[in-house]
């Protein structure tokens, strides 16, 4: 089959739409995640999405809903337990380890197909059906709408917390709301690239963008562009050789990151 035959297939089209939606959400959230130093939190949240998904598999409910529940619970837990920044790393580590262990236990108890199990860790975008897609699109719109509403104070609180507090910005509440948004987005990404590779969409594109510009708006636009390139490009590249989607998504994402680091280094030297 040529690439054009492959593009005609229903589930490939669904996968591409899902990837495009995810790329947008991950790209927009990314600069905030990097600025707020939440890469490890995203990783922890994604592991808990895996736990939620595994629990859902065991209970016979939709994996998507399980992942969503797991991530949101994780996000709220992290927000509440790690009040001090110095605590955050260790709190995430503790929760992450326990959640992963529980997830493995639940998968061991699950008697269904093993393909379902593996998919939670490494992603199975071609398994996304139209119900999943609907959940993905609706959740994404919700995440972007909430983010648009809290955008300015969240940005203020992220880059300049002292002065933000002085202006009455509810810094603590914003950090919990943002953690929940990240939780939802993470749960969605888990479906596509899997729990282990969420960082490739949520962190790497933003980190790359922030290497080459100091303008927050430009960084967000570039981050979306890079995330889209990685997500959609990764799928397109994986089609013909029949390679795992997640491997190519992370590879594209990482190449973009390396290039941006290079550009950033050259610029800084010449400046």
């Amino acid at each position: 089959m040529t690439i054009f035959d492959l593009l005609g297939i229903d589930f490939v089209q669904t996968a591409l739409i899902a990837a495009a939606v995810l790329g947008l959400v991950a790209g927009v959230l990314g600069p905030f995640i990097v600025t707020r130093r939440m890469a490890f939190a995203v990783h922890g949240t994604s592991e808990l999405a895996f736990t939620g998904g595994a629990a859902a598999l065991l209970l016979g409910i939709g994996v998507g809903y399980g992942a969503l529940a797991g991530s949101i619970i994780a996000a709220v837990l992290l927000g509440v337990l790690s009040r001090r920044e110095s605590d955050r790393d260790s709190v995430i580590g503790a929760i992450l380890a326990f959640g992963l262990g529980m997830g493995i236990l639940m998968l061991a108890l699950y008697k269904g197909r093993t393909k379902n199990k593996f998919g939670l860790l490494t992603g199975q975008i071609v398994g996304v059906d139209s119900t999943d897609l609907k959940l993905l699109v609706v959740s994404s719109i919700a995440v972007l709408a909430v983010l648009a509403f809290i955008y300015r104070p969240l940005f203020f609180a992220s880059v300049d917390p002292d002065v933000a507090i002085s202006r009455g910005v509810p810094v603590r509440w914003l950090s919990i709301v943002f953690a929940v948004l990240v939780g939802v987005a993470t749960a969605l990404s888990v479906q596509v690239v899997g729990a282990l590779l969420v960082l490739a969409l949520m962190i790497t594109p933003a980190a790359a963008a922030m290497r080459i510009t100091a303008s927050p708006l430009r960084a967000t636009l570039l981050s979306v562009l890079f995330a889209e390139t990685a997500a959609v490009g990764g799928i397109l590249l994986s089609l013909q050789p029949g390679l795992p989607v997640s491997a190519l998504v992370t590879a594209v994402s990482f190449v973009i990151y390396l290039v941006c680091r290079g550009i950033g280094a050259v610029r800084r030297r010449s400046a």
Partner: protein
Amino acid sequence: MTAISLRGARLSYADRVLWDGLDLDVEPGEFLAVLGPNGSGKTSLMRVLLGLQPLSSGTVTVAGGKEAIGYIPQQRALDQSMTLRGRDLVGLGLDGYRWGLGLRHRRERRIRVDAALESVGATRYADEPIGLLSGGEQQRLRVAQALVGDPTVMLCDEPLLSLDLANQRVVSELIDKRRREAGTAVLFVTHELNPVLPLVDRVLYLVNGRFRVGTPEEVMNSRTLSELYRTPVEVVRVRDQILVVGAGACEEQTHHLTAEAAS
């Protein structure tokens, strides 16, 4: 109209009284320095004025309300890779606390931000990554950030800390210029009076629940400070500097609103 007014203000945590019976009026254009050792309630006073901390009793009024306050924090090292330009920092001072994306009135916003940048002489580096600027440049941007909202009151929380002498002078002159031109009242928390001594109209000196308000001459003398500290303190004037000996009054200190809010 008085810019800041405190009447019978009391602030206490559990059994510890930071200050009680504090009556204070700061007039437009007045420069009030707030001095005192660590834990004497200087930062708490700021938090009260910012509306972040309710008084235990008494009243506080700020002309124009909370939104008319410009706040200048200590200079602190910013992350070099931070995706932020001086122009963005100043813009946040204008409307960063408002909900939404802020897509409307972008033109007017830009004009005001440009004007604030110009007024502190920061136009040249307004589009550079803020983490790469010097401490003095960053602190000029902080002044612009506080001015852009056209404040009636400026609260300065050790804004000169960790700056060299030349930059201390530049930053304090910018604050002074504003209060002379626009009649903005300045409340300046510091542990080091000398860099701003020529600008200071009055001093509020806080020590262990006791306080004294008055001109530098009235407060910064051996008798008054000895009474406040309840231990012999020697105040010496050398040229145009004031040296305080024996109070432990010049200790280094750092405090942040965030640190206090988190605890």
